[in-house]
């Protein structure tokens, strides 16, 4: 297995357009489409929901295309340009984004060109929304509040993800990791046409801003085409909060909640006392991989395959919060047995009783995963942005190099930092059965 050579594909070339506003360009000739990502960064907090309304209100109409229908028609005319908003997080920061993807000029029939028109359209959507007397239309805001409320309520429908979020909320009282990037319904209800307009102005004016472009176009002419995207950004950039310190675990706690359903979801949170910027960060990534990141990992081969205790089981390490979460979809009656089995596998890794092959397979799987990322401009842009926000070297090859230096002893040391914090179980009520008519 070849590892830690360079992948041969370039990273983004970055330039600061104004204080707090950066343009990242990556030339990409293998694909048929260009990708553009415009992101604004905010501190994560209880009011995160209000920021979520900005991209959704922008998608409801611009000056020249003043309705959702007109925006959609224009997208279709631009050879099916895909455009939409998204909300993500990087640790304690919320990332609000407008994403777009459109055909490369070289692929269009009849020598048509698209790049300039596409960027101009995206610029108008972001900087010249359809406003009524200087504000977003009240009906639009009220409808987007209602839409986002359902989005927050709908998080419950993905039980695994819901159980993991509940576990984080209960583990991290008083820490920013507990907030969901969609925010809360309580803060959403404070939104008005005026407040969302103010949030939009604040975002485009002073929030730290990153534009990522990946496509065929050459950077000299491209920069000129992309610069108008920064038109609204002023010189005073909002400051982001200092990095919140990572905590250790206290006493092991247990929490069980119930729902009407069939399968229980077990989530165990561990404090790792490591993360971005810590020398053991990559060792913890590999430790998590040996425990439950892959089909060769111990949770899959032992808890699922040998003991048939679950279908889905894995572990996930977050370098921002320093939390490692293990989750499994199980029969509620086997919760105690599954929990013991999971903790036993973690003890095996702590004692170093995993094979040299398990260790090597995990290194190789991580290396392979990182190299595959280079085929996806969307993943590369996300990696680049998140890396910059959490203070990590934003090159894939840099991370590959650090991962390749992880030793077996480092994995054992990292595993021994795992402290169980909360054992959370979302389990079905005893008396329920589905009711289909």
């Amino acid at each position, binding site marked *: *297995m070849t590892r830690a050579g360079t992948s041969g594909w370039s990273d983004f070339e970055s330039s600061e357009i104004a204080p707090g506003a950066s343009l990242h360009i990556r030339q990409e000739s*293998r*694909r*048929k*489409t260009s990708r553009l990502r415009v992101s604004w960064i905010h501190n994560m907090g209880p009011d995160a929901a209000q920021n979520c309304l900005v991209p959704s209100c922008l998608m409801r109409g611009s000056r020249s295309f003043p309705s*959702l*229908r007109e925006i*959609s*028609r224009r997208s*279709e*005319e*631009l*050879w*099916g340009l*895909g455009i939409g908003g998204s909300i993500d997080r990087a640790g304690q920061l919320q990332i609000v984004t407008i994403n777009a*993807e459109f*055909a*490369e000029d070289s*692929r269009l*029939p009849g020598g048509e060109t698209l790049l300039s028109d596409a960027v101009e359209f995206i610029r108008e959507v972001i900087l010249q929304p359809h406003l009524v007397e200087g504000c977003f239309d009240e*009906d639009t805001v009220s*409808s987007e509040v*209602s*839409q986002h409320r*359902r*989005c927050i309520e*709908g*998080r*419950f*429908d993905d*039980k695994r993800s819901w159980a993991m979020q509940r576990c984080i909320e209960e583990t991290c009282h008083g820490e920013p990791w507990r907030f969901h990037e969609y925010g809360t319904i309580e803060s959403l209800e404070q939104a008005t046409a005026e407040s969302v307009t103010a949030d939009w102005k604040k975002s485009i004016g002073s929030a730290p801003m990153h534009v990522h472009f990946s496509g065929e176009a050459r950077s000299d002419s491209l920069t000129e085409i992309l610069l108008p995207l920064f038109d609204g950004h002023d010189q005073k950039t909002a400051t982001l909060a200092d990095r919140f310190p990572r905590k250790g675990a206290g006493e092991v706690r247990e929490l069980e909640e119930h*729902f*009407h*359903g*069939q*399968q229980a979801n077990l989530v165990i949170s561990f404090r790792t006392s490591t993360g971005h910027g810590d020398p053991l960060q990559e060792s913890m990534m590999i430790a998590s991989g040996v425990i439950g990141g892959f*089909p*060769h990992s111990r949770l*899959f*081969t032992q808890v699922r*395959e040998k003991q048939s*205790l*679950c*279908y*889905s089981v894995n572990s996930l390490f977050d370098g921002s919060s320093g939390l490692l979460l293990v989750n499994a*979809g*199980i*029969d509620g009656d086997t919760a105690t047995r599954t929990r013991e089995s999971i903790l036993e596998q973690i003890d095996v890794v702590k004692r170093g009783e995993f094979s040299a092959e398990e260790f090597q*397979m995990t290194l*190789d*799987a991580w290396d*392979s995963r990182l*190299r*595959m990322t*280079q*085929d996806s401009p969307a993943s590369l842009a996300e990696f680049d942005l998140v890396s910059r926000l959490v203070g990590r070297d934003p090159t894939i090859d840099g991370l590959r190099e650090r991962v390749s230096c992880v030793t077996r002893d480092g994995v054992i040391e990292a595993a021994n930092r795992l402290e169980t914090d909360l054992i959370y179980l979302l389990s079905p009520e005893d008396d329920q059965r*589905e*009711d*289909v*008519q």
Partner: protein
Amino acid sequence: MTWIGEEIILENATLGERVVERTHASGATVAFCRKPGYLRRYACFSTRFGSVDDRYRINGGPEVLLPDGVAHFLEHKMFEGPEEDAFVQFSRMGASANAFTSFVGTTYLFSCVDGFFPCLDHLVRFVQQPHFTTENVEKEKGIIGQEIRMYADNPGWRVYFNLLAGLYKNHPVAKDIAGTEQTIAGITPQMLDRCWSTFYHPSNMILLAVADEDQETFFEAAGRLLSEQDLGPAPAVEKILTEEPAAPAQQQVRQQMQVGRSKVLLGWKDLHPGIGGRDLMRKELVTEVMLECVFGQSGPLFEELYRKDLIDDSFATSYQIHSDVGHSATGGDSADPDRLIDVIREEVGNIRKVGIDPVDIERQRRSAIGYLLRAFNSLDHIAGSYCGTRFLDGDPFEVVDLLAEITTKEVEERLQEHLIPDQMSSSIVTS
């Protein structure tokens, strides 16, 4: 002789893609699509054995009826080898592997960066070497039981399968792909062995690579691997189709479960026995363009429903073909599923009276080219599109020519014949 018949080349200049296809002496279809510059390599080995293939006979013998969930169960068990799980060997080679069972097929796949050919060896060999024991089959029932429960708690999955139950009276497409805990309880190693012998013969399979590798090296490796095992002549398998009436089985299926957001789907049933290849692809494309004109975000209906707060971003529409049946489905999350159904029913009636504006169709043609360019960036999409269309005797790239060919009249006729109340059913999942 390794290869039989003529080499087939499928290609399209607009998409910039080309697939070379050969038939191996065993009967297997082997295909290669080169993706220059991509680091990721992808290969899949697919069989035309999915959840709808529940009745068949061999050589005119007695009819065999399989319990629901067998194809999916077999997919799980193929990964188990006498020494170790096939997944582990892929991991050893730095590759990631997976498999999925659909209504009409089962696909085993891997992706890797290095070591493509050793991974290809492993893929072909493990799919051709079943290892079923009473112990490992019984053990799998617990794992799949948890998978079934996981989907039972997924309201998006439930609203979809309840719609199928509303649309189809007899057809096995209405049944969950994984079966139920009851139907899989009776599965035995012998049953899996018979299914494997019947449906995993190379003549029923496609081996495809989408990779930046040398084409001839791939065909040489694939030819050698498929020649390693002589499985004899292909069994004369007659899949028995289930007769399905044109009318939906039920007008509506409602399920109560604890959800954050209510879900709703409306479906229009479609039958197309005896149609395949280009004709079926044309029908699919005409239907998709029609649905986009009626339900798409640039149409009048979407904005009205959105403004009335009856739908959100999750609202989507698709046309799906499964074996000899198909259906259009539209819907998503809704604050008021019953009202949404009423409004859509009424508005579709109005649109049928007014017809579709030819300008909308022209815009959809242009938009579809952009969509295809985006989609064909993806190795997985190329593989899915190739296998899906080849299973139906179609050409994955022909869609570009068909887009230019289809007429306003065809789209209009499709609207009038397909979106009719008599063919409609709906499904609601709500708290």
